[in-house]
């Protein structure tokens, strides 16, 4: 156990304490009752959805995944299924799991604070909000054939044909990827030398790869929306 952890536990022993009964248990009890009441009242007034009997011959259009997966379905517009449906969620899960091991900043443990951990909080909040923004777009702004509609627009099948998509030639794609990841890894190492040194070589690389991958999703979305780019890199096996 690290010294810091020991200090934390020693410190815990010193903090002012109150009896769980009734101070904590009473609050838990009230919270549980409130949630039960809210759930039951809401359920009484708002029915759970139930559509027609499942019919393999008649696809829903649009067919939507449950809302919490709509962020992934939404990036299916910008990436092939193996990236949107498998690689991105896997990286998110792994990325979340490694957070405690790459964030070596001991400050802000056990209380809300922003200034002492600006980078961590900003990146996490960005990812959290990004995920929910995609869900909101997927839930409220996607109609038949996953075409875009504003929430106040009526869905119709008669939307303008999307402009044709172009892919970058491979030499340019490889070049762009090298620039993005190369500079992305090197520039912060130089510009924020103290930060990089604090992290150490391995942690720095993991942190920055995860960060660049997350921002990469945003970059690809931007490239598509602004320049109609389909793929950055095409190979016989997969496209990015």
């Amino acid at each position, binding site marked *: 156990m690290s010294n810091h952890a020991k200090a934390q536990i020693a410190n*815990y022993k010193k903090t002012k304490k109150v009896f769980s009964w009734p101070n904590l248990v009473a609050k838990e009890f009230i919270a549980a009752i409130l949630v039960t009441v809210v759930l039951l009242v809401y359920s009484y007034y708002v029915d759970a959805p139930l559509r027609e009997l499942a019919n393999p011959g008649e696809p829903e259009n649009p067919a939507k995944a449950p809302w919490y997966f709509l962020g992934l379905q939404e990036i299916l517009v910008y990436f092939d299924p193996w990236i949107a449906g498998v690689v991105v969620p896997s990286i998110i899960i792994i990325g979340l799991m490694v957070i*405690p091991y790459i964030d070596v900043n*001991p400050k802000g443990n056990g209380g809300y604070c922003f200034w002492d951990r600006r980078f961590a909080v900003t990146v996490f909040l960005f990812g959290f909000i990004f995920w929910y923004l995609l869900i909101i777009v997927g839930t409220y702004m996607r109609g038949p054939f996953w075409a875009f509609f504003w929430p106040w627009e009526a869905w119709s099948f008669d939307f303008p044909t999307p402009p044709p998509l172009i892919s970058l030639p491979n030499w340019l794609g490889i070049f762009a990827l090298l620039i993005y990841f190369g500079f992305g890894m090197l520039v912060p190492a130089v510009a924020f030398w103290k930060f990089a040194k604090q992290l150490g070589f391995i942690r720095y690389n993991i942190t920055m790869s995860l960060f660049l991958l997350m921002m990469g999703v945003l970059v690809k979305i931007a490239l598509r929306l602004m320049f109609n780019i389909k793929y950055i890199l095409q190979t016989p096996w997969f496209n990015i």
Partner: protein
Amino acid sequence: MNLISYFIRKLTETEVWKSVFRHGYTDTPRNRALQTLSNVWLHLHPVKVPKHAVKIRFTWCLGGLTFFIFLFLTVTGVLLMFYYVPDVNRAYADMIDLMYVVPLGRLLRTSHRWAGHAMVITVCFHMLRVFLTGSYKAPRQFNWVLGVLLLVLTFLLSFTGYLLPWDQLGYWAIMVGTNMGAATPVMGYQGPFAELLGVKINNDIRFALLGGTQIDAPSLLRAYVWHCIGIPIIAGALMILHFWRVRKDGGISGPL
């Protein structure tokens, strides 16, 4: 008031009361401690907690609520199992029965459904609060990892339940989800490098999930078994570990 306290005193002094609770009720520090210690349900808690930890604005009750909603789902879920049969010829009709015939069936089904959504929301916000309070830092790193697993399991619990009504909504949502599975590199038949291992539509990961090449009776049964037995057991086991670690890691986090 005096009458009430008189009755409470009389009640808590009876032999029956004492045989159930194993300690007196008089308000002494010792009895407050025993209230937590000698109660199998409450002894999950430490006898004493840091003062800041009982502030609502520290945890927002989110972890506790996630767990409570899980319990709510377990109770309503078991009741639903009395009426629901995971058979493609019956499942949808059972839903209609629940909505129109079974006494309180509509409330049962609807509250199970909304509670499922609520749990997904509270677990996400629990994660957010743990992040913002930096509570994943040493010595609680591993409990965060357990938490991430619980997050994924919560999604999967909800997702497997989605197919069970056997309506168009669930059917096509599961179609979208499992088709993504088909694109898994190496392990899905449409994914990159599938040929390497000879992965085809009838032996890939999507096939394993659906129990066939399309969503049909075996898929419904698989969704049902995972939803009602498999994932709740795994998630329940991890929750036990998660709570145990909260205490072993030095109790709930707090400012240094």
